[in-house]
């Protein structure tokens, strides 16, 4: 009879397990042990955290500043702040939230210095301003139609082969461009939630916004990326 796999033994508080743990699927769960290692100045712990988060940090930094050089500097500054602050990190928030909060604070400060204050002033304000509809109103039947507000120009399925088409380099570039054209608040939210795969709770904590505002911004961002993909697939 098959039994479910035994969960890994809990080793918290003991010696660090071998650090050859694969980092391909980052799991915030075992950050705690690495943070312990970092506090004890274990270089392998630092390297593993670096490898786990450097790409995600850089992508988010790129939302705030369009030059790669500056974004890389912000990532570097963030890790230096981690080294300087880790002894005071008490684990009230997860390490991941703390790490990304440092990056966001640094990136915003930098944006202010470069005169880009306005566009990063308040995510809540942006969520409260009326947004464009997810789909242009002319694609729906008129309010006095027999089927009011139902599709007049419905979307076409992207088809069986859509997975391959969605993963094509050309499509990936298109999605990156679509994100770059979003208002900054939407970019921050969609980057964390969908590109980096944060939970909505983590997104709210890092960006300090409410769940509702997060969802409003996420909805607008996703709707626009979907529209860009639709335009791309329909023209072929």
């Amino acid at each position, binding site marked *: 009879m098959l039994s479910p796999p035994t969960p890994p033994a809990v080793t918290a508080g003991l010696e660090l397990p071998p650090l050859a743990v694969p980092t391909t699927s980052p799991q915030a769960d075992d950050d705690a042990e690495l943070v312990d290692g970092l506090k004890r*100045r274990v*270089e392998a712990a*630092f*390297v593993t955290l*670096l490898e786990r988060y*450097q*790409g*995600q*940090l*850089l*992508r988010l930094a*790129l939302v705030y500043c369009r030059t790669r050089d500056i974004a*890389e500097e912000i*990532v*570097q500054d963030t*890790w*230096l702040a981690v*080294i300087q602050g880790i*002894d005071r990190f008490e684990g009230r928030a997860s390490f991941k939230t703390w790490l990304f909060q440092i990056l966001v604070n640094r990136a915003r400060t930098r944006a202010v210095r470069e005169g880009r204050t306005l566009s990063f002033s308040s995510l809540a304000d942006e969520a409260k301003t009326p947004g464009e*509809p*997810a*789909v242009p*109103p002319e694609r*729906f039947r008129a309010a006095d139609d027999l*089927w*009011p*507000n*139902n*599709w007049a120009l*419905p*979307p*076409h*399925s*992207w088809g069986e082969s*859509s997975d391959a088409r*969605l*993963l094509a380099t050309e*499509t*990936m570039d298109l*999605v*990156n461009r679509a*994100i770059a054209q979003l208002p900054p608040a939407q970019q921050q939210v*969609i980057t964390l939630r*969908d*590109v980096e*795969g944060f939970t*909505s709770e983590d997104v709210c904590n890092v960006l300090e916004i409410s*769940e509702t505002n997060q*969802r409003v911004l*996420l*909805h607008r961002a*996703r*709707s626009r*990326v*979907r529209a860009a*993909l*639709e335009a791309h697939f329909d023209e072929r």
Partner: protein
Amino acid sequence: MKDDLMTTPDLGDLTCKEVVELVTDYLEGALPPDMRRRFDQHLTGCDPCVVYVDQMRQTIATLGKLPEESVPPNVLDTLLEHFRRWPRERD
């Protein structure tokens, strides 16, 4: 007159225009139970909205597969040097 719509089953009380604005709350599991039921009822009878919700799912999946950015090795080397110079104890 569009014949295809003549046979459309009951779409419930939500219109397609409303459905496309509720789709994120639906996918995020944030719709109240009653609204979720109305949303599901609409999908049962509306193929274009099923396509739309599918496209949103595909969009989210694609966003999650964007290639990862990578920090150049020299930046990482600099950080490692900092780490190695980092005092063991803060006194």
